[in-house]
């Protein structure tokens, strides 16, 4: 049976495509070294449009109005510029209300793009540009530790990783957030205290990596100006032991938190990347796996939600679990040595070296 995967890897090669949502200009060069916040591509983004109906303004049918229009597509017009002049004793002018660029013209109408802005695409992780995707973006490659999460607030930043935890369950507590954490990427087990999130914003942090987050705080976390990444899911429980060990052992290193939202369709996930020196290129993570005894797995549903275990055996046929459902199941050995039969659908293979 095909298994869902999540990567918690101490050393791997990471290739990530970073693409603009629309055609633009790639600003990075091949082989360029980039930081996560470096702009690698940009696109012009007309913020809004203004439609000028010359026919209506001059009281003329579209065809007649069209003949009076003096601007062309692509032309940049300053505010007040006359784009058509009516006929008669006192000819009425049609003026451009705001500076803009003509993007369409016809039928006696002119559409202006105004308030132009630039959409900047950032590298998202530190590394080397290994491929240019013309007009759309780049592929960035790096080496280091990788921890994938399940929820992110869409922001990206980098900083020194500091841990608030002495054990994986230690929560983010407002009273413990002092200035020594300012500008850092902070690790904590769980967060269910809105005050703690507010204090983190006030410091501010450069990133927050949590094992779990109370669903009541999703809105607050989404508004945070620094990246918030949730490793295991929603609720109030410890960070899984594999991620905790890997992240805690890399405390006081520079790390990148790319908290892009989890998109199951495209496969983009929030990630923590800790760049590490290498002597030879480590293998890239597997992309697909079948359930096989010996794999490390994470339980993504109760009982023992979030715990790391080893898949001991695949049960033949269907097995009845305590809920009464008959499911394809596997037997897992948890870290405390106990064994449990769980639906395979509730397991996620942890692609970890641990």
């Amino acid at each position: 049976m095909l298994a869902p995967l999540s990567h918690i890897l101490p050393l791997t090669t990471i290739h990530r495509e970073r693409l603009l949502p629309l055609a633009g200009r790639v600003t990075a060069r091949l082989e360029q070294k980039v930081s996560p916040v470096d702009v690698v591509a940009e696109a012009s983004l007309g913020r809004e449009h203004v439609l000028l109906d010359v026919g209506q303004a001059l009281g003329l049918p579209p065809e007649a109005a069209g003949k009076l229009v003096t601007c062309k597509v692509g032309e940049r017009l300053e505010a007040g510029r006359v784009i058509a002049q009516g006929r008669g004793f006192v000819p009425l002018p049609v003026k451009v209300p705001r500076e803009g660029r003509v993007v369409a013209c016809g039928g006696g109408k002119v559409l202006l793009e105004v308030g132009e802005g630039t959409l900047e695409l950032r590298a998202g992780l530190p590394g080397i540009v290994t491929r240019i995707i013309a007009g759309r973006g780049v592929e960035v490659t790096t080496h280091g530790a990788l921890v994938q999460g399940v929820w992110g607030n869409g922001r990206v930043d980098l900083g020194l990783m500091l841990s608030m935890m002495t054990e994986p369950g230690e929560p983010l507590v407002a009273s413990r957030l002092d200035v020594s954490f300012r500008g850092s990427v902070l690790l904590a087990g769980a967060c269910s205290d809105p005050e703690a999130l507010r204090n983190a914003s006030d410091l501010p942090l450069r990133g927050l990596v949590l094992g779990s987050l109370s669903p009541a705080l999703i809105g607050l976390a989404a508004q945070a100006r620094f990246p918030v990444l949730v490793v295991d899911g929603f609720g109030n429980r410890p960070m899984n032991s594999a991620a905790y060990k890997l992240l805690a052992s890399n405390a006081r290193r520079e790390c990148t938190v790319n908290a892009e939202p989890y998109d199951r369709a495209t496969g983009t996930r929030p990630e923590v990347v800790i760049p590490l020196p290498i002597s030879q290129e480590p293998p890239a993570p597997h992309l697909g796996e079948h359930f096989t005894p010996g794999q490390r797995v994470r339980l993504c549903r109760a009982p023992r939600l979030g715990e790391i275990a080893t898949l001991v055996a695949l049960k033949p046929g269907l097995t009845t679990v305590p809920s009464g459902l008959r499911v394809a199941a596997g037997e897992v050995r948890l870290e405390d040595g106990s064994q449990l039969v769980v639906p395979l659908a509730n397991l996620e293979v942890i692609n970890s070296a641990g």
Partner: protein
Amino acid sequence: MPASLITADSLLTVDVGTVTTRAALFDVVEGGYRFIASGQAPSTAAAPYRNVAEGVHQAIGNLQTVTGRILLGGDQRLIIPAQDGAGVDHFTATMSAGPALKTVVVGLLNDYSLESIQRLARSTYARVLDLVSLNDRRKPEEQIDSILRLQPDLLLIAGGTDGGATRSIDRLVELVGLACYLLPADKRPVIVYAGNQDNAVKVRNTLGPWTPSLHISPNILPRLETEDIQPAQRALVQAYAHIRRSQTGGLDDLAAWSDGSLLPTGYAHGRMVRFLGQIYGGQKGILGVDLGASAATISAAFQGRLVQGIYPHFGLGEGLGGILRHTSLESILRWLPLDIPAETVRDYIYQKAIYPASLPATVEDLAIEQALARQNLSLAMQAAAADFPAGIPRPAPDLTPAFEPALAGGSVFAAAPTLGQSLLMLLDGIQPTGVTTMILDQNNLLPALGAAAGRSPILSVQVLESGAFLGLATVISVVSGVRPNTPVLRLRLSVRGGAETQVEVRQGALELIQLPPGQAGQASLQPLHHADAGFGAGRGGQIPVSGTALGLVIDARGRPLRLAPDPARRREMIKKWLYSLGG
């Protein structure tokens, strides 16, 4: 290409869901079409595969293992047509996997074309993000900016009656054309136009160059008083297939094996319900409900007319993350038979949205999952009921009309640990009235038969009548406003060649009289205190009853069902009801 029993053609159907890909084999056995077996595998439409092929091959491979029949060649391609006992003669494919289509609907007037076009949008896996109409108070450029910002997958346009004025719809089409022109080429939406046919040529000229695929269908509202949604639905099916083929790999093979016919699962579901309505339909409607990871689907046929709603936000998968925008946590908690803290239920909802394929392994998790199923089904029924035709018989305007039968699919019902749990979820979610035979689609065959009905209607009928679906219960729902514990129905069941059973049912009760499959009888209903048991208030009658897995169920709990406000008492009541249905 119509198939017949003489040609004895075999059929393989594949349904690609968000979580599971299912393959089902149908063939002729002893002169009639039968469902042979099914195989399933996890779907691979999402990352990291983003190609349905792996899941389809595994599902068909599992089917091969079950049946011993070779279906795939050495190159992993389907053997079609059948050769020397291997492969199949025909193939159909349905799909519900993938995120709901980002959709913008465009119509002239809110009460007419915009309402009709929204109904069309609800007949597929769509999420309507914006409405553009003449009633829209935004400036045209603001409407353009909205389309540019949303970057929809799909634009649905309607407006005007055939032969009516064309200028207003021309203006809207021009606006849409401008927005599409301004979008990057790879972000332009597929467009379905179902408005005044006098505008069709202009629509083609204006929009054709700026969309990857333009579908012009007959007018959804040819006259003000006549809505005809079916031709536009067929155009929407093509648009859906186009969008999915551009998003997901492996669909070209499915389309090629099925002669280009890749149908949305919900459409095939609706087609089968309409087909059943044409064959069996009487005064009552026919209901099909399906609660899956991708969406909740309600298909109801009233004398051949289909009313359908596909609600991605009421599905039990990824969509759960947004369910609390449509309902309160308390509304979900009220269905729990166990004392589970509200925070636990809220955590469950969000965790399930991250892991839509995960299953409830504990008793507590199962209780939450089934509470969500009740609430989501109930919400979907309420939403669909807004489109039910006026004038259909029902005991009160806010109650579910009488359906016969009601077919239920979705693994939350089909794979529930007990049939009593399946039935209670359905009764609570649908709240049927009158007499209803509840049928369980345990193998997810309804969409498969709907897809097959276009090719071989006889196959669909014969499979349906062959026992491939499970008759769950015959339910008599009594509507009465009397106090609890007041007698509302006296029932006498005479089993053919067997004993007679008499019961008096009181308001608030849920009673089960066992009548196993294979047995049949006559039930005589005498309502008391002006209760309505399906014949009108205070009117009695006789109904033939056939045996089902659970038997005859009398639901006198009230309509609408009002649960006890006290949580402890409510939980006890739910446990008692479940116990009444066998646990």
